[in-house]
């Protein structure tokens, strides 16, 4: 019998706990201080895009990477959060701050409903169903111009002043720090979740549903938890996106399949089942996109090729290179 020895503790001081803490603090420091130090709105916007898409991708990872559920209508779910918040303000004078919550709740409701009807299905069927749910949402938004202004675009009021902080559109640093707080809270929540008992249940479901049920777990229930929590967080991010962007339209690039693909690529490049990999991948991909902005469509060719490359040759994404970089 050839038993494989348990993994030896890594003796490399570069990976000892204090050094890890320092590395994390250093990265957080970079996130906090680079945008104000450079003080260039263009750079700040890149940081906002990267953090925002990174957090959205990490939420996506909670579904695909941990429970093996693919929400291929993800952008439609973001749209529910964004539009609930924006329409609440537009039609019913709900504060955009409350919109962060109502956006999340509305999306959680859609997620729960979609979950109930789809989660008894498997893999590809979930992808197909969520895809059409997402597209239905988008089509419905663009076909109700009297309420949503459709493709004309819905303008969203900026967040009102809170605790003396000014959130007018010119002050994008305020939006950036709000995003860091919001995104940071979401990332911590996700990390706690996947390390809790729920995380064990999610991973077991991803690996083998029948075996999981045979151990007494109601897999449908845990999949519903996963899907509803992810939808809530997606809705909150969608609502933030609406306030930050200032104008919404249900185009495929904004809330359709292209946005889903963009987020999905970030998740896969970051590495499924890693959560934080998505943040790094978002900076990498958004950075590449901006660097190659002059190349026009070529940057999307690079994007697609990267996804193909990851699927074929680097199946763990950036996480596969962790030992060289971290």
């Amino acid at each position, binding site marked *: 019998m050839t038993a494989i020895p348990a993994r030896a503790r890594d003796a490399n001081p570069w990976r000892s706990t204090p050094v890890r803490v320092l590395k994390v603090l250093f990265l957080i420091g970079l996130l906090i201080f680079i945008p104000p130090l450079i003080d260039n709105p263009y750079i700040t916007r890149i940081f906002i895009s990267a953090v925002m898409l990174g957090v959205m991708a990490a939420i996506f990872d909670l579904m695909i990477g941990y429970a093996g559920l693919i929400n291929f209508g993800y952008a439609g779910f973001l749209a529910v959060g964004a539009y609930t918040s924006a329409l609440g303000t537009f039609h019913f004078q709900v504060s955009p701050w409350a919109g962060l919550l109502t956006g999340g709740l509305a999306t959680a409701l859609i997620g729960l409903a979609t979950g109930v009807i789809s989660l008894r299905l498997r893999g*590809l069927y979930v*992808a197909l169903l969520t895809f059409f749910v997402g597209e239905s949402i988008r089509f419905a938004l663009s076909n109700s111009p009297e309420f949503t202004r459709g493709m004309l675009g819905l303008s969203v009021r900026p967040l009102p002043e809170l605790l003396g902080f000014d959130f007018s559109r010119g002050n994008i640093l305020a939006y950036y720090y709000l995003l860091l707080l919001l995104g940071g809270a979401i990332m911590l929540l996700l990390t706690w979740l996947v390390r809790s008992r729920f995380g064990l249940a999610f991973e077991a479901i991803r690996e083998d549903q029948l075996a999981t049920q045979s151990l007494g777990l109601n897999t449908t229930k845990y999949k519903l938890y996963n899907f509803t929590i992810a939808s809530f967080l997606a809705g909150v991010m969608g609502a933030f996106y609406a306030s930050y962007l200032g104008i919404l339209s249900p185009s495929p690039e904004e809330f359709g399949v292209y946005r889903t693909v963009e987020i999905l690529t970030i998740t896969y490049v970051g590495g499924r089942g890693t959560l934080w990999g998505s943040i790094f991948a978002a900076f990498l991909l958004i950075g590449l996109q901006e660097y190659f902005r002059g190349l026009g469509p070529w940057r*999307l060719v690079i994007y697609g090729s990267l996804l193909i490359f990851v699927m074929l040759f680097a199946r763990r994404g950036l996480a596969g290179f962790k030992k060289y970089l971290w």
Partner: protein
Amino acid sequence: MDFSLLLDPYILTEVLVQGFVRGAMYALMAAGLSLIFGIMGVKNFGHGELFMLGAYAMFFVTVVLGWPWPVGIAVAAVALFIFGMLLERTLIDTLRRKAGRDWVLDAFILTIGILVVLQNLALILFGTSRRGVTSLIDGVLVWGPVIVSYERLMILGVASLVGLSLWAFIRFSSLGKAIRAASQNPEAAQTLGIDIRLIYTVTFGIGAALAGLAGGLLISIYPAHPTVGFEPVIKSLACVILGGLGNVPGAILAALLLGVIEAYSAFFMSAGWQNVITAGLVVLILIVRPSGLFSSSKVERA
């Protein structure tokens, strides 16, 4: 909405004819997607981009070279057959050998990557302008209240012909039998000496050829441009789900049905709502009958 209009014989005939023509188009697009899904289990999200390449091939042959349109369609089909096989052998086959158990879901993600690359390469090479022809054949058939262009009738004819030949090929040719065996039980087929890799490559090639053929044939309705594949892929996905995943005859029936339903809804509602109806219908079917409208077997549930 006045429901009595729904049963008015003139409107009914008109709508049925338009619906069948539309359905034939969808059937043509969906057949290849359904075939690939049925045999390999792969949902090819890049199917619309193969359609797009077919449309460009058609444009090149008929407009740039000025050759007759049947040649264009043939070239589109053959070119996509070869391209599809290349794609399968270089990318999908590699993935299948690396990903193991979950390869089908991963293959779906891979085809998304293929979609993004092909679409943007087309944008770089050909720009955004629409390249089409006004019609392949001129003239209209007037028959009582029904007015149909000859072109649309030709599409109906070609679609039927292609459907029949596909059915005959799968049913009677030795390669077709091998393909069926491979789809029912890959391991058993392998022990019988059937080369699964080859079967998959050829199947993907045929599926791509069908997409290319559809792209070429429908160039007057969907002129070639980089994102032309979006609508076809959504419609064919819808048909494939309605008909039952991997059930080719089911997909074709579903396409006809969808065509008629859309023709009806187009008559009574603004065009944008058609898509909502289609998507809603698909969601409904996935909820109540995930194995599709025309299947007796149950989908494997969790």
